[in-house]
């Protein structure tokens, strides 16, 4: 507990310090003269509401697409178990191993070919293929017994119905985990949106916060304040997802 909380506490206390107090010796556990100036500065630096709206739109679309596309693929791989499913799965797994740094320029060139530079679509569309999401879901779906599937099939349910009404409800806890990690990833991502978006009006919150980094000097207190503010939406989403997870666990628990 202590290990988890100390760095967080440090983050909050740094955001409340003035520039001079950052490096005082001995270190100030509690800021001697707490100030909200860092927060004020964050809010005045860029169109805040706009950046949050952009981030929210991009992130939500990203999460929805990831969850749908990945859960469908995971369902086909782990439950339909078509011939070659393992090969496809292996390919998915493999694709995670290529470092993103090296695919940046090829991806950019593709987006350019599709004329998608400087659109939200360019930032969102990679969500359609998230190998890690498929992997997570396959791993969990495999743990579900096939009895349900057989029972539904005997009742005459089609594959889509089985996916929607049988498998997905049992997967709620995993989906919630996936949604929250994807949310976080999309919310915090900056290199891809940075390369894609040049229009100021489309700037995301993470991009905006990054401009706090000056050429020569970084104000850590302001940076921490900005980071804390940008974490709030994620924490709220997480708490919502939490309740989903709890419900999901009870649904899943019925299976035994």
């Amino acid at each position: 507990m202590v290990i988890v909380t100390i760095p967080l506490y440090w983050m909050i206390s740094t955001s409340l310090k003035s520039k001079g107090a950052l490096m005082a010796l001995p270190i100030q556990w509690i800021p001697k003269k707490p100030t909200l100036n860092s927060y004020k500065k964050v809010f005045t630096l860029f169109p805040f509401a706009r950046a949050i709206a952009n981030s929210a739109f991009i992130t939500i679309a990203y999460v929805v697409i990831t969850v749908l596309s990945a859960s469908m693929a995971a369902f086909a791989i782990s439950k339909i178990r078509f011939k070659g499913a393992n090969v496809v799965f292996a390919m998915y797994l493999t694709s995670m191993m290529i470092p993103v740094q090296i695919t940046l320029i090829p991806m950019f060139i593709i987006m350019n070919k599709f004329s998608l530079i400087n659109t939200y679509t360019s930032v969102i569309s990679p969500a359609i293929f998230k190998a890690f999401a498929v992997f997570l879901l396959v791993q969990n779906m495999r743990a579900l017994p096939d009895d349900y599937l057989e029972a539904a099939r005997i009742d005459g349910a089609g594959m889509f119905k089985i996916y929607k009404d049988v498998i997905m409800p049992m997967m709620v806890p995993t989906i919630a985990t996936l949604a929250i990690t994807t949310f976080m990833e999309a919310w915090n991502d900056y290199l891809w949106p940075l390369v894609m978006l040049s229009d100021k009006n489309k700037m995301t919150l993470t991009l905006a916060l990054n401009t706090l980094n000056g050429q020569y000097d970084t104000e850590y207190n302001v940076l921490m304040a900005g980071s804390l503010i940008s974490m709030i939406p994620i924490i709220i989403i997480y708490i919502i997802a939490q309740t989903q997870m709890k419900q999901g666990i009870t649904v899943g628990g019925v299976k035994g």
Partner: protein
Amino acid sequence: MMTTMSKERKKIIQAIPFMLPSIIGMVIFSLFPIIMATALSMTDWSGLEKFTIHTIPEHFVGLSNYAHLLSHKEFWSTLLHVVYYIVLYIPLGFVFSMVIALILNTEKKLTGVMRVLFYIPVLTSWVAASLIWKWVLSSQYGVINSIIGIFGMSGPDWLTNKYWAMPGIVLASVWKDMGYYGLYIFGGLRGIDPTYYEAAKVDGAGKFRTLISVTMPLLSPTLFYCLIMSLINAFQLFPQVLIMTEGGPNGATQVMVERIYTYAFSYFKMGYAAAYSWLLFLIILILTLIQLKVQKVWVHYES
């Protein structure tokens, strides 16, 4: 014979609509970039020119990038640093995640609060997390060494000492990731059918015994996922290094992805960087294949 054939075909037809979006995505966002990166790895393209169809034939150099990499000390030392990281990170991360999962599973009060607390590091961006840890690990102004100081010892010069810098980065990474894996394992624990525990109790197994012979095997698919993901992520170790040590002191924390990024975007040697990525890819691939083979021995699927 006919029936199995048509059954297989039927399955494929059933699978197509489910796989389609994902497969299209894979071709566009993964397969194509990978093919292009492969082609680039055989060129001396700088990456600082407009890419056209002529780029690859004009700059073609065959396998010389690979030969240069493999005969160079740098590649091997960065690989060694990553291995050092993994050797520290995986056991430490496993223990902490497991502890979190077990705390959450036994503690009935406060679980809601604790789950949020444990998860906050996961939700922090790496940029912020690395900056915090740079402070936390500072030998003079840092919290960790202040605590060690309370016990009358003096802490190491974490990030500025060439032996302690990597352990410092490992600490930060464990702090950031343990909540994720902890909660994931916790989900796995909750999914275990209670009848197994009852059976173990009837057999007179103690707590530790139950953990080893009942919980662990049933948890193995979950743990397998954690292991594969942390291996892949470990090899792609990057943002924390960039911010906390910039590969220092004296290159002691230089890792593969950092080199790839530097070659591609700072030295303007895109072809060389692509070859570097390919070697990194091959290493991860081989390790994952071994894992997939070995999993048959220890991973237990219910169905």
